[in-house]
């Protein structure tokens, strides 16, 4: 007499053509390679912004300096380098004030390296959430890039202030009009980091020690990027080796457009851009496959 179930005794319709357009989600055991749902990612844009906010806010709760801590690390590193590599080792800085020379390289590199490392560890770092709730996993790497962009923005502001200070005090620096293209350089660095990070993320879930290996390699790679020395100081013989590193043109160009020294070649920049596109596409494909099975092996 009292029944709260909805009776549906009719046999379910089996004709695939009739029903195919009704389903909003269709999951099969072997998904197609190019099954990246960008529309869904867009629906989760609020989540991305909230995670970025969380990363930023939570990191500085109960601190006095708050986000200013973002500036201390590159500043301290810059001063250290200026002392060791500049004052002690006397490595040339192309005639630039040492602080101005080291800071942009360190800032860009920190951005690149942090983004890459965090992205590569996506599955391990978020295993707790990923194991309980579904949302497009790409949300996390994207939020990582944005969080790091905020830090970069703050550090960049510091750099601009320093450039102005030196300029006012009459130091010989040339800020070229190309400085307006800085966002493109940041895009290159961010894209490279995101691409390589997502590419590596699937491997680090299987092999935890790869993450350690990555830490070490990033530190080594930093010395393979013209950060503490200008490219002009590297002998012709080895320059090609540095040119293989897609971050080399980014750093060199950045220094050129803001400070007026350094070697820029369109070819090298194109090479970086090509690397970025390749790693981004490849990384997205690998990540897309990995996100569906990663929780079985984390």
């Amino acid at each position: 007499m009292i029944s709260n179930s909805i009776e549906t005794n009719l046999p379910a319709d089996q004709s695939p053509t009739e029903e195919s357009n009704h389903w909003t989600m269709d999951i099969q055991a072997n998904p197609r390679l190019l099954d990246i749902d960008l529309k869904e990612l867009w629906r989760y844009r609020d989540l991305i912004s909230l995670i970025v906010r969380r990363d930023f806010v939570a990191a500085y709760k109960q601190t006095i300096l708050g986000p200013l801590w973002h500036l201390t690390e590159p500043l301290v590193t810059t001063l250290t380098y200026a002392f060791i590599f500049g004052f002690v080792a006397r490595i040339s800085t192309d005639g630039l004030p040492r602080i101005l020379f080291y800071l942009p390289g360190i800032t860009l590199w920190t951005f690149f390296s942090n983004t890459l490392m965090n992205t590569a560890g996506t599955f391990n770092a978020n295993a707790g959430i990923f194991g309980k709730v579904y949302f497009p996993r790409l949300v996390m790497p994207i939020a990582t890039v944005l969080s790091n962009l905020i830090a970069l923005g703050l550090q960049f502001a510091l750099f601009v202030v320093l450039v102005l200070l030196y300029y006012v005090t009459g130091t010989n620096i040339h800020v070229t009009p190309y400085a307006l293209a800085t966002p493109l350089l940041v895009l290159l660095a961010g894209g490279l980091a995101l691409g390589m990070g997502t590419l590596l993320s699937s491997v680090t879930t299987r092999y935890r020690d790869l993450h350690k290996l990555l830490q070490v390699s990033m530190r080594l790679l930093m010395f393979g990027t013209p950060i503490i020395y200008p490219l002009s100081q590297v002998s012709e013989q080895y320059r090609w080796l540095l040119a293989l590193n897609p971050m080399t043109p980014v750093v060199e160009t950045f220094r050129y457009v803001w400070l007026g020294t350094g070697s820029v070649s369109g070819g090298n920049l194109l090479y970086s851009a090509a690397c970025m596109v390749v790693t981004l596409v490849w990384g997205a494909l690998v990540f897309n496959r990995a996100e569906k099975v990663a929780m079985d092996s984390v």
Partner: protein
Amino acid sequence: MLNANQMSVVVRVENISKKYQLGKIGTQSLKGDLQRWWARKRGKEDPFGTIGKEDSGRHGEFWALKDVSFDLHQGEAIGIIGKNGAGKSTLLKILSRITLPTTGRLRVKGRIASLLEVGTGFNPDLTGRENIFLNGAILGMSKREVQRKFDEIVDFSGVAQFVDTPVKRYSSGMYVRLAFAVAAHLESEILILDEVLAVGDAEFQKKCLGKMDDVAKRQGRTILFVSHSMTSVQSLCNKAIFLKKGCTPGIISVREAVDAYLGGDFKIQGYYKATAEASAGQQAQILEAKLLNASGNLSEQFATFEDILLQIKWWNISGVKVIPNFMLVNRQGITVMIASDAPIDWDGSKKREPGTYVSTVKIPGNFLNANDFTIHLALDCGSPRVCYDVQLDALHFSIYDPMDERSLARGELVSVREDAILWPALEWNYEKLSGILVENNL
């Protein structure tokens, strides 16, 4: 007609299986895998293999789900029942897209939201307000949606006062209540729930269950609910899936599923006899207990209309005040009632003399619904901490529905709800007010 039916299927699971690799996945480190590869290459023994290579069981594969298929229709509340390791969690994980099935296909109409845990992604350093938005977004709500429901969420959680305090300062109860409140206000056509209901204090639990019920029955959403509590499943769900070793016959009635879960081998036993001597210092002991029908014969099966006599023989060893009592539990594990010898002699002045006694109590017919029951017996003294003797699972009996007019409770009713605990013949009265329709103001 076909079209209407198509619309109503909201989840279609076809032949889903999930395989897990037993033992370790790889050796967990690159070095290990390389060493293994190098060893194999030289034809040596695997340095990470278990000793005694024929140990295939541990490194074999394990099918957590095998060929599971079913359709869910709109508005259904389905309970998923099964013992630990039966594949419930795996099924939920596949349905909530946390992992991919090894074979098979899953299709869904509408938004699917899964709650496998309350408070996923809560950040202790953020305030309650910030966490509501973050958690809402993780569960798939947009900022605007959360904003619209914000007051409702805070209201439901009852932490309004602390909404701008970091949640790490919350008591664990407040934390869980806030987390549940966010989840409860999720808007999705399909809701997947793990045993997240058992949170907070009793009052809040009731509120949660009420909310779930509301979601399922009034809002017409489809619910999948996993629980070990047969009571919750029975009160929330109208159909069920019973999983056993990764297999399921599909969707069946809750009653069938609960029976299957509880083992289907209920042992009836209308007689109990103490097996051991009273221990030293024990002041009273249950010696014997039996169930009798109206004609005084030992019985384990009773029709719904039959009176049941419970006879307990006990020994008052040291002349103390003894209150014989029993607890009646049904097959689903619900405590139906407790009953004790009354009137109780609270002042203790009338001690019972040492000796052997027989207490008889009548459980009236036309009172309990058909089911299987277990009786726990005890001898108490009226003080909450002292109990002379307890015999759990002392007696087991069944009550069946004779399906005829002897069940006074039935009257002329054709069907009856099996999940009702009681089926009493109550006293009904009526009077005729008038031959025509009168104002409806009772």
